[in-house]
C-alpha cells in the first residue's frame, strides 16, 4: 500500500487552500471584520489596509500597479467584465473581437452572448494540432473595427501555453486592447503585464491555492488607459468598475496565495514538472497506444492530458474512483481524482470541444484523461497513480472489443460501424 487517502490530481479544476493562506485569512472573519469602505473608524481602516497590502501582493506577481487590480468573484466574472466592459465602452470605435476556439466557456459564451445581442462580431481563431494560437493569425484577423483581442495564456484542458507576449505586441502595434485569461497560468508561469503588453488580465485565487469566490481583473490605467463599462453597479467600489463590499478575508487569502506563488514559483514548477514526467514515463513504458494531447513542451508543468486508445474515459474514471463506491474488491485502494474529455462526463454529451479544436478525433477524445498535478502531490502518490492507471487500462482493454480488433490487425477506421 502506497498511500492512505484519496489522491487529488485535478488541480486545474481547483486547488486546496494552502494552510499558510488559511492562517492569513482567519483573523479577517472575526477580529478584523470591518468593511474596507468604512472611512469613519478603525475597523474599516484595518480592513482597508489589509486589502491594500493584498492588492500589492497580487499586482507584484504580474508586475502590475496595485491600483490597476479590480477584485471580482473569480475568473468567470473577470472574463465577463473585460469583454462586455470593453465592447460596451468602445462601441463607437468598433465592435469586433478576436478570440480563439479553445478559450474557456467564460470567454466563449460571453462572446456568443454579445453576438446574439448584436453588440459584437467575433472571430474565433483556430489553433494548431498542439492547441496553440498563431500570432500571425491574430494580426490578420484584426480589422479597423477590432476593439479587443482575447487570447488565453494556458489552456485548462490540454495545458498548452500561448505566445501571449507576441500576441500582446501585435495588438499594441495595431492599437487594439489585449485581454488574456491567465487563470491557469498565473502563479505557475511568469507573467509580466509590461513585457507582454497585456491590457486586461483575468485571474482566480482558487486555481493557485487561495480560496474560492475571489479573483481579479487587471485593468491597465496608463499607456494605454483602458476604460470599461461596469456590469455591476452600486457603491462605486473598485474605481467604479465593480461595486460591492469587498470580500476582505478572500482578498487577504488571494494576496497571500500570490506571494507564496511568487516566492516558490521556480522551485515548484520544476518539482511539479518532474512529477509529471515521472507519471508520463511510467505510463508510456507500461502501455502501448497512449497519445499525448496538447504541446509536448509548451505546456503547464502540472498538466498531463493523454488518450488511452480503446478505453472510454468515464469507465476509467470509475475504476480510478474505486473506493468512493462500495466495491469490496477495491475498498482498500484510495480513490484517484482526475477528469476526462469524454462525452459521458460532460453535461452536453459531446466530447471536449478543446480536443476537437486540436483535431483529436472523437474516438480518441472519448478516451482522454487529464491529470492535473499540483503543489501538494508527492512522489508516492504519483507512483501509486501510475500503477493504478496502468492496471485499470489493462483491465478495461481486456474488456474492449476495439482493442481486440486492433490487435487482430483490423483497421478500425475502415469498419462500417452501426451508428444510432
Amino acid at each position: 500500500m502506497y498511500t492512505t487517502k484519496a489522491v487529488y490530481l485535478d488541480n486545474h479544476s481547483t486547488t486546496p487552500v494552502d494552510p499558510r493562506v488559511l492562517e492569513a485569512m482567519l483573523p479577517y472573519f472575526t477580529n478584523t471584520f470591518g468593511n474596507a469602505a468604512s472611512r469613519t473608524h478603525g475597523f474599516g481602516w484595518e480592513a482597508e489596509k489589509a486589502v491594500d497590502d493584498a492588492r500589492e501582493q497580487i499586482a507584484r506577481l504580474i508586475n502590475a500597479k496595485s491600483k490597476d487590480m479590480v477584485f471580482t468573484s473569480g475568473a468567470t466574472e473577470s472574463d465577463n467584465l473585460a469583454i462586455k466592459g470593453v465592447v460596451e465602452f468602445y462601441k463607437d470605435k468598433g465592435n469586433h473581437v478576436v478570440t480563439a476556439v479553445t478559450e474557456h466557456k467564460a470567454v466563449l459564451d460571453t462572446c456568443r452572448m454579445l453576438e446574439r445581442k448584436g453588440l459584437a462580431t467575433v472571430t474565433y481563431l483556430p489553433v494548431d494540432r498542439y492547441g496553440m494560437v498563431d500570432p500571425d493569425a491574430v494580426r490578420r484577423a484584426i480589422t479597423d473595427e477590432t476593439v479587443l483581442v482575447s487570447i488565453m495564456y494556458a489552456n485548462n484542458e490540454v495545458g498548452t501555453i500561448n505566445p501571449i507576449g507576441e500576441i500582446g505586441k501585435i495588438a499594441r502595434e495595431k492599437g487594439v486592447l489585449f485581454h488574456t485569461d491567465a487563470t491557469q497560468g498565473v502563479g505557475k508561469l511568469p507573467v509580466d503585464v509590461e513585457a507582454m503588453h497585456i491590457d486586461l488580465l483575468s485571474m482566480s485565487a482558487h486555481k493557485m491555492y487561495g480560496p474560492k469566490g475571489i479573483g481579479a481583473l487587471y485593468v491597465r490605467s496608463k499607456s494605454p488607459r483602458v476604460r470599461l463599462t461596469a456590469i455591476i453597479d452600486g457603491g462605486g467600489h473598485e474605481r467604479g468598475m465593480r461595486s460591492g463590499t469587498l470580500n476582505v478575508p478572500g482578498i487577504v487569502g488571494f494576496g497571500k496565495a500570490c506571494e507564496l506563488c511568487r516566492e516558490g514559483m521556480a522551485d515548484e514548477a520544476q518539482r511539479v514538472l518532474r512529477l509529471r514526467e515521472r507519471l508520463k514515463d511510467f505510463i508510456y513504458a507500461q502501455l502501448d497506444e497512449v497519445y499525448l494531447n496538447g504541446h509536448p513542451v509548451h505546456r503547464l508543468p502540472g498538466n498531463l492530458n493523454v488518450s488511452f486508445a480503446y478505453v472510454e474515459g468515464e469507465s476509467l474514471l470509475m475504476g480510478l474512483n474505486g473506493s468512493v463506491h462500495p466495491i469490496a474488491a477495491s475498498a482498500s485502494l484510495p480513490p484517484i481524482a482526475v477528469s476526462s474529455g469524454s462525452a459521458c462526463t460532460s453535461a452536453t454529451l459531446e466530447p471536449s470541444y478543446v480536443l476537437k479544436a486540436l483535431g483529436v478525433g472523437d474516438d480518441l477524445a472519448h478516451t482522454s484523461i487529464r491529470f492535473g498535478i499540483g503543489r501538494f502531490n508527492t512522489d508516492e502518490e504519483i507512483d501509486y497513480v501510475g500503477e493504478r492507471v496502468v492496471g485499470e487500462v489493462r483491465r478495461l482493454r481486456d474488456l474492449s472489443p476495439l482493442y481486440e480488433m486492433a490487435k487482430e490487425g483490423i483497421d478500425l477506421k475502415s469498419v462500417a460501424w452501426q451508428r444510432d
Partner: protein
Amino acid sequence: MAYSEKVLDHYSNPRNVGSFAKDEPNVGTGVVGAPECGDVMKLQLKISDDGVVEDARFKTFGCGSAIASSSYVTELVKGKTVDEVMKIKNSEIVHELSLPPVKIHCSVLAEDGIKAAIADWKRRRTTDTKAAS
C-alpha cells in the same frame, strides 16, 4: 455521478467477458455502436439447434453503465429462447440497473446488441443450411 450498486457490481465483476471463436457454429455476433460515439458493444450468443441461448460473451468499449448493461444482458439471455430474447426491452435493463436518464442510451445499445446477434445467427444459419443442401 452516483452509480447504482448493481452498476458498480457489474463494472467491477463483469460476467461472461470474452469472445467465442469466430468460426464456431451456432454463434451469432452483434457489434453495435461506434468508437466516435463513445460506445461499442460486441455481444455473442451461442444458440442450440432448438433455438435456446446456451451461452453468451461480451466485450464493451464504453462508460461504466454501458459495460454493466452488457454484462447484465449476458446473464439475462441465458436459457431463453430466441423468441423470448427478441422481446427483451431496454426498459428492463434500465430498471434492473437503476440507470439515470442520461444513461438510457447504454441500455438501448444492449438491446440493439441482442437484436444484431440474433440477426447474425439467423443469417449464418440460413447460409449454413444452404451450403449443406
